[in-house]
């Protein structure tokens, strides 16, 4: 059996755990009870996907590696997630709608990411790495529900009130440039493409564009121009936000290494 490079598996795992952690910040703070539950469930799915991938890498690394050592004892400069996923749940803190928890930002990010993952997991189902293919087949089912959930809310916001429209548009304008990172293969992606364990992400660009354009049009939202800086989170060059996120996520495990309960 072919094996996907560990760094590629970590890229997928880090994506899931970092977004899972961000989405979990809504737990107990959701705008309505149903959404509080929905986001907790989305977060659980993502953390579950991350666990399956970390467990796979830990098994392949052998030695002392465990899912916990990979999630809790790697530093921010070793994480390989997209920058998009580590950004806080809000836009720049200026203007009349300034709040450190903005639901439109969360929904738009979940939409951009799950639109990508529905395409990517679908392709990864036929990866020549059978373990990765098995994880992809499970994760695809979950990503589809995440996509429907976020797309439905995006349309409600965009085609809703004047304020919900403005805030959804602000979130799209803020986050869309970060999606450029999806389409430039990193070294680990190139390695996975080369050994036949992953598809070329560039081949998914057109389908993603169509899905996003279609949903934004239904939501009466404008799609911003894509140009300028391409983030490099998946190459372990992150924004400052990841350090704080990991600081919170890893503090307990690092304060009490090996603790069980």
């Amino acid at each position, binding site marked *: 059996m072919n094996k996907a490079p560990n760094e590629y598996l970590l890229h997928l795992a880090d994506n899931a755990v970092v977004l899972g952690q961000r989405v979990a910040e809504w737990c107990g703070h959701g705008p309505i009870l*149903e*959404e509080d*539950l*929905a986001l907790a*469930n*989305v*977060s*659980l*799915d*993502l*953390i*579950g*996907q991350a*666990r*399956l991938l970390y467990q796979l890498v830990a098994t392949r690394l052998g030695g002392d590696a465990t899912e916990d050592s990979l999630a809790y004892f790697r530093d921010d400069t070793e994480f390989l997630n997209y920058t998009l996923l580590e950004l806080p749940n809000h836009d720049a803190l200026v203007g009349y709608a300034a709040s450190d928890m903005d639901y439109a930002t969360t929904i738009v990010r979940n939409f951009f990411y799950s639109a990508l993952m*529905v*395409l990517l997991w*679908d392709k990864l*189902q*036929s990866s020549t790495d*059978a*373990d990765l*293919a*098995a*994880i992809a*087949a*499970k*994760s*695809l*089912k*979950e990503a*589809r*529900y995440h*996509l*429907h*959930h976020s*797309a*439905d809310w995006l349309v409600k916001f965009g085609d809703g009130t004047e304020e919900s429209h403005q805030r959804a548009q602000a979130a799209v304008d803020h986050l869309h440039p970060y999606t450029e990172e999806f389409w430039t293969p990193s070294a680990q992606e190139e390695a996975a493409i080369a050994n036949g364990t992953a598809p070329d992400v560039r081949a998914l660009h057109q*389908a993603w564009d*169509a*899905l996003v354009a*279609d*949903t934004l049009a239904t939501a009466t939202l404008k799609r911003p121009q894509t140009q300028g800086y391409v983030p490099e989170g998946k190459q372990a060059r992150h924004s400052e936000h990841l350090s704080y996120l990991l600081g919170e996520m890893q503090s307990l495990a690092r304060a009490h290494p090996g603790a069980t309960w």
Partner: protein
Amino acid sequence: MESAKAKIWAALEHLTDPEIPVVTLRELGILRDVRVAVDGSLEVVITPTYSGCPAMGQIEDDIRASLAQAGIEAHVVTQLAPAWTTDWMTPEAKEKLRAYGITPPQRRCADEAGGGAHVLTFMPPRPTETVPCPRCGSHNTTLTSQFGSTACKALYKCLDCLEPFDYFKPY
């Protein structure tokens, strides 16, 4: 060996899902197989439901405890592929769910166009099934939220008897 396997099936026959205690693990399709491993030991094969389902740890513990109680030595093996699907639920499980107040899946996932292996250009097909109320049987129901008390369920409301209810989503 066949009798040892039968003993294991019997020991686990009444083991139920920790969150939906009216259906057994076998009926849900979580308990997949009892088989002999390469080294001659016995293996109980389970397939996880949702990736983040917090009940999976409990399910493994429950199986180990039941095996120990019956004095049986066997390993519990988690198998990811083929991925668990609600298509594996037995008709009895579906009826038990309904009687318990949870509408069972109304759609077979394997019947979806391409079974998920097709190339998506736009939004993947949306659920189009009607979801009957588990209490009054009315088809006049509406989706409240795509996620309910657990990841595997959605929240619905009956527009006739006005009761809210859970729907076990096709997966």
